[in-house]
């Protein structure tokens, strides 16, 4: 490589195109590149590589603004006894909720935690079986519905009750995929949360978002924040060609930090979110 790469009008266009291609959105891409251009002017930046590194830093900084820590400390009940940390996993259809729970169970089991999973998707074909398979692989016990088509809130309740009984460290609750435009289903989710909270506070509500999603990811973040109180994002399928750049706007609009990323269909393909690595992958 060696020499510096000079900056011309094409450079700005290419940078903006790269951001658009990464699903940052036309508006955010324009804003970032305009800001970068002003900064480059002030600082007399001459080398394109310096521009890229400044852009990476700007992106990484924005994405790090919310605390990415997972809050899994076990809360205490009124008598001071430890309750399990309850995690609700939510999101639209097919994004990777059930798979993520399997990966997360494995990750937590490896840390010596006792993990239980609740199969509160009582709607979709073979959802319980799929979760049970993942739970077994992940070293977690599964709480299944007692009857077909059981109210999901009731299954979630039973899973938490069982987790308390068994002194589980963490209870992960799988829910059915639901498009945020379905008011009845979003109400159902609020109800699942309320019912669970009768037994234990909810430690985390993980919203699973698919990296291949376009602008709709922002609407999803807002809706799941409003109806389920989402506290963290899991961005899946980053092992593909999609960059998931919409999370920048999602963070801006909904303020939900990205906590985890899914990078494959294997049980170990779940990593902590790293803003620098994400920015590097997006900008190059």
């Amino acid at each position: 490589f060696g020499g510096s790469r000079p900056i011309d009008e094409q450079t700005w266009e290419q940078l903006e195109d790269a951001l658009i291609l990464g699903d940052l959105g036309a508006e955010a891409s324009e804003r970032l590149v305009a800001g970068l251009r002003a900064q480059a002017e002030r600082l007399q930046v001459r080398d394109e590589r310096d521009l890229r590194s400044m852009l990476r830093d700007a992106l990484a900084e924005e994405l790090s603004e919310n605390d990415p820590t997972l809050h899994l400390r076990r809360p205490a009940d009124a008598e001071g006894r430890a309750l399990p940390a309850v995690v609700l996993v939510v999101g639209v259809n097919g994004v990777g909720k059930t798979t993520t729970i399997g990966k997360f169970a494995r990750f937590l089991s490896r840390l010596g935690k006792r993990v239980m999973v609740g199969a509160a998707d009582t709607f979709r074909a073979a959802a319980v079986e799929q979760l049970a398979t993942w739970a077994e692989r992940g070293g977690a016990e599964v709480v299944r519905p007692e009857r077909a088509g059981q109210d999901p809130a009731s299954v979630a309740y039973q899973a938490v009750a069982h987790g308390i009984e068994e002194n589980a460290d963490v209870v992960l609750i799988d829910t059915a995929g639901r498009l945020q435009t379905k008011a009845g289903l979003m109400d159902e989710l609020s109800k699942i949360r309320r019912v669970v909270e009768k037994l234990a506070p909810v430690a985390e509500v993980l919203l699973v978002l698919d990296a291949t999603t376009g602008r709709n990811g922002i609407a999803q973040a807002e809706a799941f924040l409003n109806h389920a109180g989402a506290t963290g994002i899991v961005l899946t399928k980053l092992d593909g060609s999609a960059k998931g750049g919409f999370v920048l706007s999602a963070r801006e609009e909904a303020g939900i930090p990205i906590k985890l990323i899914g990078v494959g269909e294997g049980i170990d393909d779940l990593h902590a979110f790293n803003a620098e690595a994400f920015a590097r992958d997006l900008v190059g």
Partner: protein
Amino acid sequence: SLSERLTATFAHLRGKGRLTAADIDSTVREIRRALLDADVALEVVKAFTAAIRTRALGKEVSEALNPAQQVVKIVDEELVSVLGGSTRRLHLAKVPPTVILLAGLQGAGKTTLAGKLGRALAAEGHTPLLAACDLQRPDAVTQLRVIGEQAGVPVFAPEPGNGVGDPVRVARDAVVEAGAKQYDVVIVDTAGRLGVDAELMDQAKRIREAVQPDEVLFVIDAMTGQDAAATARAFRDGVGLTGVVLSKLDGDTRGGAALSVVSVTGAPILYASTGEGLDDFEVFHPDRMSRRILD
């Protein structure tokens, strides 16, 4: 909406007399922004707006009573022409069984679609058979069995899946079974796969070569963003596609992925999936899709 944006742009230009090329440029920029906001892939936006620009420079706009509306009309016409231009019915084999292969990214809606398509074909008097060739995703075979039961369509599932069995062989055997038992359509469900996964793209190609399908349907989530172009290209080159199914249209995504996929592959969108129920399945309507993208 595009209509509102362009009306604002043209109001700004009104009373200027002739529209200049620069005026058209600002109009085209608005269109570009609207399409990007609707998730149309960048390369497709560039090609599409270039075509619009050519038309917008002509008399139909400069002599129009309402140039803004005329431009919107042009965009809508061009969009409908691309989305619906090669629209057609499902290809049926001259000698049964007709083989339909489903392919696409993880979670797009293939397995559910197998049930919907089977049910719709059965209602038309066909005798479909669903083939469980996703032997990888946990309990995918069980999922297809349950869906088949709900749809009232038989399922060919000789292998348990969960890593056990060869999808190429199951696909081939399903076609033999259909011939033997007189099913006139075989719908092959496959595992979701990434366009960048060379090994799995090769597997999809081998499944295709083994069964010589009459249709290879690319199932894509309507909310897919910029990646729709790269993924459509990968599946077009890796497996070969004859048609497209757009899923989860019951959401509120604008659906620009529809334009991206058709532009990149030339394959027509045959169907729209509009919900999780087995009857949430319809023929694709290009005019409705155009209005949705431009909304």
